[in-house]
């Protein structure tokens, strides 16, 4: 099992350098795209331009990017209420994401879903989900189908550690193991389930749970995209080869509140703790400084990426702000498939 703690750094160095520098730069850009996109989402909320709320992924970017980088476009993911990062990492475009968050017609789901329900067949996104653990059945079912249909697709099921409270997760993990389904359960432990430290609502060791079903389980430093990518790739290829499901625990942290309106967090976590993660364990800075050190990139290249990403955000936002709302008769459409037959 890999870990990012001190002494192993030298051993890792050679491994990570087997990956093409361009690919690390791509992951850097993807993480930055999530960061800048969501900073803008927060801005929209603060300036009262966005209906409802959003749950920001900022701080956790290395998980979505490291895992999705190891997936093919035709592989599937399921996501959560904190889903913008997963959707972007799997290939969603910012303009249609913003449009969806604003309830506009060209949004991924015609404005009908909103922040918590982005779904996109073109990128293998089976859907974000506002029910905690709501998508674990869907993910496992897609893996069942991939196996039955004889494709070599793999499914990644993203969820927070809060989902470990839901019984349905244990039902589907049991079947995934019994039937050797190509599904990776990616648990992002960001230390909090809403406003409660996870230890107060979780007994025992997380990894013991999948292991009880005979599911291969590992933990990684979720702030280190290199480690996430390497381990995810191994687990995904293992599943693709028919060796069955795996469970990947990613230890991570969300920088903002549970949702954009969760401003006063002092009753459940300290400012010092937040600052420590931001200054010591920021996934974007960790990758950036490693790339500088290894001369994969120089400051100029990283700055150029940031400029390009900011321009992408700006253009995407303008697209969404200028887009129309859906036609009112959309409200009654898509309740049933083949609606003409009703």
């Amino acid at each position, binding site marked *: 099992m890999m870990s990012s703690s001190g002494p192993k750094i030298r051993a890792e160095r050679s491994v990570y350098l087997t990956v093409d520098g361009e690919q690390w730069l791509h992951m850097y850009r993807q993480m930055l795209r999530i960061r800048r996109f969501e900073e803008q989402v927060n801005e929209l909320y603060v300036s009262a331009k966005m209906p*409802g709320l959003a749950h920001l992924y900022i701080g956790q970017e290395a998980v979505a990017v490291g895992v999705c980088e190891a997936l093919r476009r035709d592989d599937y993911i399921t996501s959560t209420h904190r889903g913008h990062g997963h959707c972007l990492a799997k290939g969603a475009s910012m303009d249609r994401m913003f449009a969806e968050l604003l*309830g506009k017609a060209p949004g991924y789901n015609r*404005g009908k879903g*909103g922040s918590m329900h982005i779904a996109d067949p073109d990128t293998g996104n089976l859907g974000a989900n*506002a*029910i*905690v653990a709501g998508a674990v059945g869907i993910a496992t079912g897609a893996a069942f189908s991939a196996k039955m249909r004889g494709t070599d697709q793999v499914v990644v099921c993203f969820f927070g550690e809060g989902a470990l409270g*839901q019984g349905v997760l244990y039902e589907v993990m049991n079947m995934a193991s019994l039937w050797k389904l190509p599904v990776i359960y990616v648990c992002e432990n960001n230390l909090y389930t809403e406003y409660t430290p996870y230890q107060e609502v*979780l007994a025992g060791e997380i990894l013991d749970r999948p292991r009880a079903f005979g599911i291969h389980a590992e933990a990684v430093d979720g702030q280190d995209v290199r480690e996430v990518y390497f381990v995810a790739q191994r687990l995904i290829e293992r599943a693709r080869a028919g060796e069955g499901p795996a469970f990947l625990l990613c230890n991570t942290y969300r920088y903002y509140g549970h949702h954009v309106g969760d401003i006063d967090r002092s009753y459940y976590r300290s400012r010092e703790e937040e600052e420590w993660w931001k200054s010591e364990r920021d996934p974007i800075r960790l990758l950036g400084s490693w790339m500088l050190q290894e001369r994969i990139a120089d400051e100029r290249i990283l700055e150029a990426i940031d400029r390009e990403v900011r321009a992408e955000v700006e253009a995407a936002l303008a697209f969404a702000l200028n887009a129309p709302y859906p036609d*009112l008769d959309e409200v009654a459409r898509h309740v049933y498939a083949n609606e003409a037959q009703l």
Partner: protein
Amino acid sequence: MSTPMKHSYESSTTDRVISMAQAIREALAEEMRRDPWVFIMGEDVAEAGTPFKVLKGLVEEFGPQRVIDTPISEAGFTGIAVGAAMTGMRPVVDIMFGDFLTLAMDQIVNQAAKVHYMSGGKWKVPMVIRATMGATLRKAAQHSQSLHAWFAHIPGLKVVIPSTPYDAKGLLKTAIRDDNPVLFFEHKAMYSMRGYVPAEEYTIPFGVADIKREGRDLTIVAIGRMVHVAIEAAQRLAELGIEAEVVDPRTLVPLDRKTLIESARKTGRVIILDEGHQSYGATAELASVITEGAFYYLDAPVIRLGAMDVPVPFSPPLEDLTVPTPERVVEAAKTLCGRV
């Protein structure tokens, strides 16, 4: 909804105005002081006081033994509440969004609702499940549903939907003292709504509808937040010379059939408002009760206005179409009264 409403059950002497959230909190605190076996269980109910801050301060008074944060395990903790209720305690379960009741359905429908009957009356399940309801808050399809009709369909469950702080407090206290499983629905958009609530203790019996406004031309039966839509419509209708009576059943189970039927007999015209889906919903049941009891007094078929039969969309202009509005009620009323 900003002006506090006076109605028949309010003490005429009180001038104390509090929010719906505070009324609910007071009911819980008073019952917990009165009965040491009452406790609260749910997600983020303690320090956080729920995302709506309704329970703020209770853990400070009653401690974490009686205001218990759970994992995200609706089926599990609802089941635990059923067992605790059967063996001497009085749990108040908190389901943050009513949509999550679906995760606890077996515990509620197959267990809590049936234990008393199946045991030939030997076991009792004195528990309350508080759940939120309601749309128009831009929370999309999985956080906006109003599922009260599901539970009203199941014998063994009682169903309460308050429309004012006064009713919420009195009915919640009654719910906690009831020996049956009670579903208590709170509209998310009403927590900050203010109204008169006396300082002295009171309870409100189940099965007693409240006439929120008297009128002779038309009866509007409305549930929960729809009572305020009805009142607003009635005020506009009054300007047209149409006097609408607004009847709030307050509890769907047990249902005060008598008051509904009497009002329908008096006015001869009825509109029913609900925020649950229209098809197979609460409006259908109330319409049949009225039709059966007042058929020969009715001048026209009963009109039902429920939520549209679509999942609640996120996009604001679409979402706003899905629930009854005062404008739509006024239009329906004018048609009923031959004013178009």
